[in-house]
């Protein structure tokens, strides 16, 4: 006798622990592969898995075995023209491994690469590994002003508006079952008795008739009794229970500020765009809700849609401070720093109206730096830095914790610069 068991319902991820062990062990390899992938693919499709390739020899498990050399002996099938004593020249360069021929083994230990797939989640984990949002903690510790209601099970007392109908009806049903079970059992017995009598005698004798009547009476009584069981009772009722939980701020707003004056080419904008998207992806891993505000500017600043932000072109001079002023205004109007984590990234080719850089520094130091968690400035230019860079350098020197700036020359720099900007700082790693 055989047992037949359906195991399909069992979990199918029996190997997931072993898989994780493998990923952990080859973390360095994978990180390298991920870094290359990030640099190669466009940032738009960063949000998917990746094929990882590791040289086979690196994951090889060593065993004692025979190497090449000595006298090998082997039997092959499919002889066509050989007879004993034939001498066959070895193929050139093959070294005559094994028999020197026909060794088309499909699992040779050549330098094949070991290839496997990691999921999007794992991929992003590696992309953002060891990166941390600067000053993330500070906001969480701030005075909590928001609460959320959370489910906390079911209770027997509450207001009608919180009545849990399913649970209440379930209880009622169970209670009705229990309370009427004696009567129903009896009813079944009596009915069976009556049926037996009816089945036995077609023309009924008087004493049986009396018995039948009595039985019918009993049946009616019992049915009544069963019906009298209350359909819904007060102690069937159940209410949803909620508790108030303080809500740490999990909202973030990200300001993208970009110069769209005539000097910014589409290529420069693309570089900026990639940086913004990378930052956005990174923020989504840390916050539940993220607002993105796009501010573009030439001589005046304007809040725009994403489409307009990246693709419409304008000409004219550049006044950076206009964008900073607008940002400050938007924060005041819509994103109170108590409730929002504010991040800003500014991209520019470094051009600015000469007098304006001083003003920028002033606005930055006096107003913005204290509002934001982190402000990053990237300058996308192969040329020499101009006044804006130098003004910002002073800001960075005074506020190293919440302001950072880097120079990007080409697309390949984006990811390294990003990593560099958000590298987990030593003093934060313990928090």
């Amino acid at each position: 006798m055989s047992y037949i068991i359906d195991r399909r319902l069992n979990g199918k991820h029996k190997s997931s622990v072993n898989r994780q062990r493998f990923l952990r062990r080859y973390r360095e390899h994978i990180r390298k592969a991920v870094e290359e992938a990030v640099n190669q693919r466009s940032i738009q499709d960063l949000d998917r898995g990746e094929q990882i390739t590791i040289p086979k020899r690196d994951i090889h498990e060593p065993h004692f075995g025979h190497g090449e050399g000595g006298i090998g002996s082997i039997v092959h099938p499919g002889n066509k023209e050989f007879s004993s004593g034939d001498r066959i020249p070895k193929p050139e360069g093959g070294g005559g491994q094994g028999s020197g021929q026909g060794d088309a083994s499909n699992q040779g230990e050549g330098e094949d690469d070991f290839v496997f797939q990691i999921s999007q989640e794992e991929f992003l984990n590696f992309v953002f590994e060891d990166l941390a949002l600067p000053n993330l903690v500070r906001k969480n510790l701030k005075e909590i002003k928001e609460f959320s209601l959370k489910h906390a099970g079911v209770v027997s007392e509450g207001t009608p508006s919180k009545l849990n109908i399913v649970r209440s009806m379930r209880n009622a049903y169970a209670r009705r079952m229990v309370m009427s079970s004696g009567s129903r059992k009896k009813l079944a017995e009596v009915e069976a008795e009556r049926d037996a009598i009816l089945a036995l005698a077609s023309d009924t004798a008087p004493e049986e008739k009396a018995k039948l009547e009595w039985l019918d009476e009993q049946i009616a009584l019992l049915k009544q009794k069963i019906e009298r069981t209350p359909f819904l009772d007060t102690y069937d009722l159940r209410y949803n229970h909620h508790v108030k939980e303080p809500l740490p701020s999990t909202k973030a707003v990200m300001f993208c500020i970009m110069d769209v004056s005539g000097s910014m080419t589409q290529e420069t904008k693309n570089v900026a765009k990639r940086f913004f998207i990378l930052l956005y992806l990174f923020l989504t891993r840390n916050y539940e809700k993220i607002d993105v505000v796009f501010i573009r500017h030439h001589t005046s600043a304007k809040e725009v849609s994403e489409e307009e932000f990246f693709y419409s072109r304008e000409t004219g001079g550049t006044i950076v401070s206009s964008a900073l002023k607008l940002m400050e205004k938007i924060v005041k109007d819509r994103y109170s720093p108590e409730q929002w984590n504010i991040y800003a990234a500014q991209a520019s080719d470094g051009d600015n109206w000469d007098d304006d850089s001083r003003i920028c520094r002033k606005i930055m130091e006096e107003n913005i730096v204290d509002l934001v968690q982190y402000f990053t400035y990237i300058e996308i230019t192969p040329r020499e830095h101009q006044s804006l860079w130098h003004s910002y350098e002073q800001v960075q020197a005074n506020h190293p914790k919440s302001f950072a700036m880097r120079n990007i020359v080409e697309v390949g720099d984006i990811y390294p610069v990003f990593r560099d900007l958000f590298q987990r700082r030593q003093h934060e790693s313990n928090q």
Partner: protein
Amino acid sequence: MSRTNKESDLLSQGPDWSFELIQKYDEEISKIAADFGLDTYPNQIEIISSEQMMDAYASVGMPLGYHHWSYGKQFLETEQNYKRGRMGLAYEIVINSSPCIAYLMEENNMMMQALVIAHACYGHNSFFKGNYLFQTWTDATAIIDYLVFAKKYILECEEKYGIEEVELTLDSCHALMNFGVDRYKRPVPISMIEEKARQDEREKILQQQVNDLWRTIPIMDKAEQQSKNEFVFPSEPQENLLYFLEKNAPLLKPWQREIIRIVRKMAQYFYPQRQTQVMNEGWASFWHYTLMNELYNRGKVEEGFILEFLQSHTNVVSQPSFDSPYYSGINPYALGFAIYTDIKRMCENPTDEDREWFPDIVGKPWVEVLDFAMRNFKDESFILQFLSPKVMRDFRFFGVENDVLDTYVEVKEIHNSSGYQGLRQRLAQQYNLSHREPNIQVQRVNIYGDRSLVLKHTMDHSRPLNEDTIEVVKHFKRLWGFDVRLESWDGDQLEQTYTSQINSEETHS
């Protein structure tokens, strides 16, 4: 063969399977198997999905195993190959246990399920129960319990000593896994309850024994000490490297010894399978062929079913020629199936050649001869005993010798009357474990000095060791705790020395 083809006798029509059908087929097949006298463990048939099959692959066919990255690697490899369509999954996996567990994939149709039941649940199963190697080396009733024990123990170790630490030990044990078997001693069967009970005790005693060997405080008088100085350890070379380490490595913690033991027991469990590939697969193929045909003969299945079966069967037992792009060595299914089928043929329709070569078999009842052949051999001796000239001719076998110093390979024998004997020996040799794997033994330990250890490799046909050797020696050193040297000897000539220190491979010539 009289065949009654009444519609009502058919077990099923159409390709779909259901649990009732599987049960019906299993009952029918088990009846036929019993008629042929197949003796099996009870069967446990489990239906699984293809993902679960990949999981089963990754754990080398064990229903549950401890965690290790190498299984993860295996899984990723299987998954990748499967997804790209580079390989299909095996139709079944069967586990040597009692009850004998066989996995059936849900994607297969009814014909395949029946084929797998015949192949695994009656073919492999009866082999596990009957073959002497399996009887000697494994205890089918206890293996599942032992696996549970091993998994739990290693999990506990990971909690206590850290994943990293346990992984290092396991890595080293795995490197030596093929050297964890006593080839000439009968092992004790393994079971969980005993293991658990003896484990604590063993920890203490083991540590004590080890300490005795490494005692540093002199307790004997001078005379005794002198005689002791000539004491050679180990007194005889040790072939079971893992066992030697488990019992004698000076620095190992008790839990590490236990882990070595677990890996050793796994090696022991797989030891018979490594030596009976041809016999085991051949036996299962022979019986699925016989049982399925008998199903047809008894009118239980229709023509389409048996034709579809024959196609699958032909794929399983096909043998590409050496010059075919699909060639990857001798197909054990094909060779085994051919030998068993030929034994049956010789019993029933012998030729003069058979009378000359196999006087003991000719004319005997084939079921008995086959049963004998299944029980008492391993691949090497099985081929030596039963490979007939006809099978050699059918496969067009030829034997080749390849001397590395020569620019030619030489054809030594082919399938003709002067070649049969030599060819058969050469093929049998190919399945001899001690020919396939190098002979490496613990030679001596410097117990009074630096505790360094010498391993001796005795070359077979002057074949050197492979490129992994240094790595494996390092693993050995990790477990031993002190310097390890591996000497490669060809006869009286020391050819090469590998030491556990980095960059110190030297060649003697």
